[in-house]
């Protein structure tokens, strides 16, 4: 027997042994079913009260009318039809989609570029990643309040002063219906890009670098190496991150709420803001639940379709 055969036999024996051992442990714990029940109590209670329960309750609530004092009343599809006929809904849906699209166009390529670049910086890479992650460390609410000040529409606002140095502006930023949404997306990108770049950076560690050598023998330039080797090897994580970003942006609340409260002239009114207003301004919990249900269903369909469409490219 050669050496490698011996190793193989040992490995098999070890695996068999350990699987028998696993079996023994499992058998022992079969007799510990009562202990398992006790240990499962916290998770079951927590999820019943704060996850499964609310999900079921939300479904029911979409078909009820309640004012939190009297017993809820069944109203069938009234909530849904009320929400769907709200004249603000198309506006909010378009705004939300516009936000998601802008965030994708502005915010998506930035972290990929940053990660690929940081990965090339051998000695100073840590400095880049620390700097890039810094905005993600700031509490979002504090960051939003700061940026709100930066976006001051007067000539003395920070951005207007800075742009004034190169002869641009002053811009109205959050006060203009056209610029408010891109301004919010810009802040959200600034806040999120670093953290996303760190995730891509970790993924870049698994790119097979032998392929770069192969490409160089074929005289591929740097740009072609990025496009044909780096990006394709990252595509799984890129696809997942893109979906998560979409789902995240559709549920964004603090940014539009604190920056503009939905204004000016409803230019930044999103679906999440509508849900908030239904429930906690108008006190119409049924309508809020119905709109949440519609948004959640839409997101489920979105991720289902997304996975179907992208299945061909991944794996």
């Amino acid at each position: 027997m050669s050496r490698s055969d011996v190793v193989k036999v040992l490995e098999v024996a070890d695996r068999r042994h350990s699987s028998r051992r696993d079996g023994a442990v499992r058998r022992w714990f079969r007799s510990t079913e009562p202990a398992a029940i006790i240990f499962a109590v916290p998770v079951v209670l927590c999820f019943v009260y704060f996850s499964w329960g609310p999900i079921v309750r939300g479904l029911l609530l979409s078909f009820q009318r309640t004012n939190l004092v009297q017993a809820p009343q069944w109203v069938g599809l009234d909530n849904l039809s009320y929400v769907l006929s709200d004249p603000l809904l198309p506006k909010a849906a378009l705004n939300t989609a516009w936000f998601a699209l802008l965030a994708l166009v502005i915010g998506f390529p930035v972290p990929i570029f940053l990660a690929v670049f940081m990965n090339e910086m051998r000695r100073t890479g840590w400095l880049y990643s620390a700097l890039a992650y810094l905005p993600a460390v700031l509490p979002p609410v504090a960051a939003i309040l700061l940026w709100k000040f930066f976006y001051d529409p007067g000539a003395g606002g920070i951005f207007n002063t800075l742009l004034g140095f190169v002869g641009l502006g002053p811009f109205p930023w959050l006060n203009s219906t056209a610029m408010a949404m891109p301004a919010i997306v810009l802040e959200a990108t600034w806040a999120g890009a670093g953290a996303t770049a760190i995730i891509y950076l970790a993924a870049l560690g698994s790119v097979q670098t032998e392929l770069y050598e192969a490409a160089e023998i074929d005289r591929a330039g740097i740009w072609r190496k990025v496009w044909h080797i780096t990006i394709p090897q990252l595509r799984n994580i890129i696809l997942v991150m893109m979906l998560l970003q979409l789902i995240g942006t559709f549920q964004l609340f603090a940014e539009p709420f604190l920056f503009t409260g939905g204004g000016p002239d409803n230019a930044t009114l999103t679906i999440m803001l509508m849900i908030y207003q239904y429930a906690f301004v108008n006190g119409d919990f049924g309508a809020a639940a119905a709109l949440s249900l519609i948004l959640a269903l839409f997101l489920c369909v979105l991720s289902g379709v997304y996975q179907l469409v992208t299945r061909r490219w991944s794996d």
Partner: protein
Amino acid sequence: MTTNIARPRAASPAARRGGKKREEQNERGLLSDSDRGRPTVRVVLICMQIIVLGGLVLGGIGPIVWAAKSAVSTSNDILSAPLSWWPSGIHFGNLAEAWTRVRIGKALGNTVAVAVGSTLTSLFVSITAAYVLSILQPRWGKILSGMVLATLFLPGVITLVPLYQTVLKLPLLNISLLNSFWALWLPAGANAFNVLITKRFFDGIPKSFIEAARIDGAGPIRVLWSVMLPLSRPIIGVMALLSLIGAFKDYLWPLLVIPNPDKQPISVALPRLSQSAELSINLAAVFLTIAIPVVLFLIFQRQFLRGVAMTGGVKG
């Protein structure tokens, strides 16, 4: 983004393996040594380095420095000369006033209380759950883990309103958690993502440890306490870090369930202040709020970045 969004599954083990290999062999990246030697590449690379580094410094440090500067300026200076250094002197009194008079210190204390409580609940629930799902493996374990995992795929928005109702009046118990930290602590336990990463972590612990403890006559509680817990230190660290970040970040939920200003965490107190306090005090409060996480980050930078990369790989 919302607090607990699942992150990609693809890269984790391979990424970490690859990362380790890179450190050992100083492996090449995208650019080959001959690429780096070419003058055009070198010039472009240096230019890009300057641009990217400049951008990162401006975007990463700029706002913090500006907040620090404005925190000790007069309101008048902030408005009339936002980009110059203290035309009318430095006013450290702003910080003291923000800390005591508008009670930023209290709000920060509340945030810490929220973070500590949420971390403890989350750890307690996910460790016991992971112990059941990964080690004890009862027959109904599959159903339980399936039901926990299913919640990961539902968008968080669907539970916002009914969760508020639940907290307003807990079913069966008829207690209201409004204005109590429990309204933030308890829902933190129902976090499928934390259960999942803890279970994965427990799955990786060799069964021989448990067998050894069992031969020594340890029962299930003893195994959890003396074998699993000491081994779980890394995952406990990551989860504590994530909870702390989450407590600083969460806005909508504490806004809804803690209307009492004395109990509000900093994320809710800050926007409320911005409507009443004068500008200089306001920016002093903003600066105090960002100072703590920034200092923590600078101290624990490696753990932060590793935690983000790791959970980024494991999530989902």
